[in-house]
Each structure stands twice: as C-alpha cells, then as structure tokens.
C-alpha cells in the first residue's frame, strides 16, 4: 500500500511528459509558463520531421485574418498516437491551447491541445489526452 502513491507519481510523470526530442529548443522558443487559446480555422496541416506545423487562421472583430503557426511533435510521434493527415482537415474549426512564443508580437505557438469544435475530437500532450 505504501508503494502505491510512489508508483502513481511515477506513472503520472511518465504519462504527462511526451518525449519530444526537440531539434531546436522548445523551452527556448516558447514560454512554457504561459498558455493561450486560439480559435480559428485550420488552413494547413504539415506533419513532418523534425517538428510538425498546424496553420490556423483567426479572424479578428474587424474581419481581417491572422495566421498562427502552431508547432508540434514530429510526424512519427503524431502517427504513434493516431494522428495522421486525416485527423484534422483543412477548414476544420478548431480551438488550440498552446504556449506562446517568447518572441514579441509573434504568431508562433507550441501545441498543447487541439480540439475540433464541431465534434469534440481532440489531441493533447496532457495526461490521458490523446485521440478521443
């Protein structure tokens, strides 16, 4: 019984830390202490190495569009978790939870969780957040 909490902690740590063997430094590029939410329309999905990019177009109140570049894991890592080119499609309305870039005025962000708002399909890096 005494060992159970330790095992749970270990399991939680292992599950929560998706092993992203970053080519460049995620910690240096993005402010992982901050989280932003981006709501918009998927305009491009690029699953590739070393990192994948999702492009989300956000329309502001004035009607002008701004493109966000959302960086995620390598294509192979996405594939292992059931995300392929068909998981999210061009035109899908999505809500993205992400770490913002450290760079001022940047529209780049690091993917934490993405949800298609029409049916709730989502993928995320948190505990238990894979494809549902």
């Amino acid at each position: 019984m005494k060992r159970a909490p330790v095992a749970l902690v270990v399991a939680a740590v292992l599950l929560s830390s998706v092993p992203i063997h970053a080519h460049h430094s995620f910690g240096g590029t993005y402010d992982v202490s901050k989280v932003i939410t981006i709501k918009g329309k998927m305009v491009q999905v690029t699953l590739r190495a070393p990192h994948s990019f999702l492009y989300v177009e956000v329309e502001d109140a004035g009607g002008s569009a701004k493109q966000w570049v959302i960086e995620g894991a390598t294509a192979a890592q996405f594939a292992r978790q059931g995300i392929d080119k068909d998981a999210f499609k061009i035109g899908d309305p999505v809500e993205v939870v992400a770490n913002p870039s450290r760079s001022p005025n940047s529209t780049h962000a690091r993917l934490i969780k993405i949800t298609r708002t029409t049916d709730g399909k989502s993928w995320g890096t948190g505990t238990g957040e894979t494809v549902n």
Partner: protein
Amino acid sequence: MRMRTAGVVILLAVLAIRPAPAQENSPIDLTGTWRWINHEDERDRNPGAFPGDYRGLPLNDAARMRADTYDEEVNTTSSLLQCRPRTPGYQPKGLDPMRIDKIIDPLTRQLVAYRISYEKTAGERVIWLDGRPAPSQYALHSWEGFSTGKFRGDTFEITTTHLKESYVRRNGVATSFRATVIEHMSLEEPYLEVTFTVIDPDYLTEPLVRSATYMRAPTLQLPPYPCQPEENQAGEKYRVPHYLPGENPYLTESGFKYKTPQEGVRGGADSLYPEWRARGVTLAPPATQSTIKPVYTDASTHFAERADASRPRTPVYDKVEALHVAGNVYLIAGAGGNIVVSAGGDGMVMVDSGAAAASDRVLAAVREIHLALRPPEMPESASPFGNTWQTTHALPEPMIRMIINTSSNPDHVGGNANVRMSPLFRLLGYRDPSLSLQVLAHAAVQRRMVESKAPSPLVPTDTYLSDTYTLYRFFNNQAVQIFHMPRAITDGDSVVWFRRSDAIAAGDVYNSDIYPPIDVDKGGSVNGEIDALNRLTGMSVTEFMSQGGTMIIPGHGWISDAADVGYYRDMLMVIRDRIQAMVDKGMTLAQVKTAKPTMDYDPEYGREPGVTSRFVEAVYRSLKEKKK
C-alpha cells in the same frame, strides 16, 4: 664458398621482399549501433536551456552579446535553419542514436576510415585514418566538417575542422566557423564514453570540454529522417527574430528559477573552476525576473580595435590555388578577389581576374585547370546544338574566351589587362576583336571606372543594363546568366550563375569571413545588400538538410552553400536593425561606433584592419541617407 655466398644473397633477398606486416588490429571495436543515455544535463538536452543560461561555458563577451540578443524563434522562421544538423561540437548532447561502420580498402583490406551516422545528420561523417592532409582553406565547410582519427592507446581521437558556424548550447551560444572539435572515444563495454572538446578562437577563452555516454544497441535501426523545411512566413517579408542589446527580458530567468547567482549564470572561464565557488556562495540570486542591460568589457570587445591597430599587410600572392567547385566550374583563390572559371571544350569563361600582381600565378592556375579537365562528356540533350561544339573541339591549350567582372573593386578587375594581353586570351566570334565580347560588366562598373580614370585595359569593354543578362549561347554545355544586384556593395554588382554546374560566382556581394565592403559613395546600401543576399539564397537550393547543392563562390573566402549565405544575411539583418534603432534615436556616427553594434560578430568578420569601422559607417550612412 660461392654457394654459401649465393645462399646468403638469396636469404637477404627473401627477407627484403617479405610481405608487409598486416595492420595491427584496432585496440577497441567502435563499430555497431549505439543508443544515447540521457542521464545528465536534462534541462539542456531535452527541453533546452533557458535563454541567458551560460553556466559551464568558458565564453567571451562577444559570445555573450550574441546569445543575449538571440531569439530561438529564428529556428522556425528560417527555412535554412529548421533542418540544420548539429556539428560535432554539440552532437553528442543531441540525443541521437549513432551508428559506426568501418570503411575497408577492398584491395589492401586495411581500415582506412570510420563512418559515423546519427539519426539527424544530413550525411555521414567520415573519420579518415589514412593520414590524408586537410582540405584547402578555401574548401566548403560542412556540418560534419573534415575529420581525421588515430588511436592513442585504447582511446580513439578525432580532430575535426572545416565546420560551419553552429552552437554549443541551444540558446544562442555560437561556435565559429574557425572552431576545431576534438573527440575522444573510450570503451567500457557496453558503454562508449565520448569526451568532446570545442576549441574556438572567436567565442571561447578556453577549450570547452564535455562528455556523453552511449550504450551498445545491436538491434537498433537508425530511422529515416526526411527533414522538410517549411516556409512559415508565407507571403511575409523574411525576418530574423532577435533582441536589441539590453532588451531581452529572459536573461535572469534561469538564475531566478534555479536560485543561482547571476554572475555564475553568465558563465565564463572563471566560473568553471572550484575556486569560484567561494565567491559564488557570497552572491545572491536574482530576486525577480527582469530585463538587464549587460555591459561587455572583456578583451573580445576590442577585437576590431586590435585589428585596426595591427599593421596593414601588403598582399602577397605566393599561394594561388585552383579548386574544383562543381561540374565544369573551378575556383582560383589566393589572387586577391576570388576568380571563378568555367572550363571545357569551349574554352574558359573567367569571372573576375584578381589582383594585377597575381596574374602570372593566375595564368599558371588556368593551365593547371586545363590539364585536369575531364574528357568531353557525351551529349545528354536532344537539343540540335547539344554538345556538338564541345565534342568537336579538343583544345590543345587553355583559351580564355572572356572575362566577366562582378564589380569594379581593384582586387577583382586588377588582372583584366594582364589576362587580356596574355596569349591565352583567345576570343570567340568575330575576327575583329573589337566586335567580340571581351570583358563584360554592368554598365555602372564601366562608367565608374572611366570616371575614376582607371587605365583603359582594365575597363570592361562590354556592358549590360538589364536586370538579367544571358550569354548568347550555351558555353561549355551550360547557360551562363548574369544578375544585376542594384545598390548592394555598389550600384553595379553582378552575380554569375553557371546553371548546369549549379554554381554562382557572387563577387563581393557575399564574402564568407569578412564584412561586405559596402561603398555608399558608389551607390551601395545595407538594405540593397540584404536584398541581394535574399535573391542569392532564393536562387540556391541545398541538397539536403541545409547543406550542399548550389555552390556559391564568395568574393573572398571559401566555397559556400545557401546555409552559409543565409547566416551571413541574418548577421547583416541583425546589425542593420541595431544601427537603425540607433539612427532612430538620433545617435551620431561617432556614438554608434562607440556603442560597438557589431562587437559580437567582429571575431568572425572583423579581423582585417579598418574593415569593421568602414562597415559600420557604411551601414549608418545608408540608413541615415534613406531617412532623409
């Protein structure tokens, strides 16, 4: 007696011709597949170090300034950096599995080299054990570099030079293209310990020694790595994310979060030794995370001044070299400005002619290239003109058909007269030489040389005015195109593209190891120079992972590729932005020079007397005059 003598002679003869002893076995077996062990430097190796965290690095102030102003986002905005492999100065920290194979000479069965592959490496590192000399100083630098190896007891030592500029930590701590990396591999089965040392005369004050451990993984297969760069700024003008000096808000983040004194976080050789601990425990960590304005005072801040104080050297052209670049394109280096030659059955097109005093050696190099020419290639085109000229002309001696000048700079046009008067200068076309193309340049080059009363044999005889000029026929089986780069170094700069060989002679628009000699009085400007470099990278394609492909021959320095030119362009954009901010504040030229806006790049590009000062002045003037 006679028989005995004969027997002795035979015995001696047999002993004399006995086969050479077989090469000794390698002291250790390095071959196989190895998995990295992630048991140290977790923050550094996995998510990446915090910005401003230079602990454990013996860096100088130039490296500090460069890293302080670095923004890691540049790795996602630049398509030339996204797939940049690691150099040996960082690779063992890179969490990549590794495979080591032997290369055996099939004839002698001797071990001539080891081949090392990493998961995220473009090519394969070859570690030569056959004692071959290092390539020329004008040879291409690569991410893998040029490596030689030898066993010292049961330790394998690798020495690597000819590296591209890279980093020792993923928060902008740079390593120069002048760095040397020495690796030591020792085996304690199943572990392989790799100690790797970076010696960098530009950015480190002492050798940086680090280590990593690998474990044998015989069944591991290196996965493919189809790295595809993305144009993440589609439709936007290319930008280089960076901070102006004193504006990076993250430099205290590591000290604050790890409760470490900022002096230790800033690194430096002193902080690496146990003696520093006594001082470190007396210092308080940052109380908050805030923006600091670092002051850079160590000797490296005086790099440009030291260069200025050194006695200008009279150029000596005693070592003129000919190097193969690509296809039928060659470089003649060491004669002032670089000379590029397309050589083949049609003769030679020469881009620039070097300094006048080097002409004899240049013509000797031309003969050397001619002797090294391969036999004419078979036609590979259905074109009715395909190679008919080339295959029917076996030239008995080199024939220089024309010169193309990239600018009016004396070390590029100085040899025009000597080459034109040499018996090797044999024109194509009309019998009347005055009707044939002889020396071609942009019209502005001819105009400026005439205005400056340059001796007429130096002045281009033929000019073009358009944005692009294509030679009237294929030459040595390829199109030769000339592109005008307006308002770059001057208003008359040209780059010359040999299309089938995929090689570009860039002239002084790009120099691999010196600031561009922008001449505002002759129509040059920093923004025009950046536009020219953007055009040059746009014309170029790397073969794989930001390396190879289109070869770009600089006006001065070594054969380069688009990644090298991309670095150079980014450097210029960073410096342009810094000086622009100073102009916007109303600072005078003297104030700008005192502020040393190029201090972090001077070790790499400011090693010649007066170069940094002239460059800063040119950037300042071109931005100031633009503002008027």
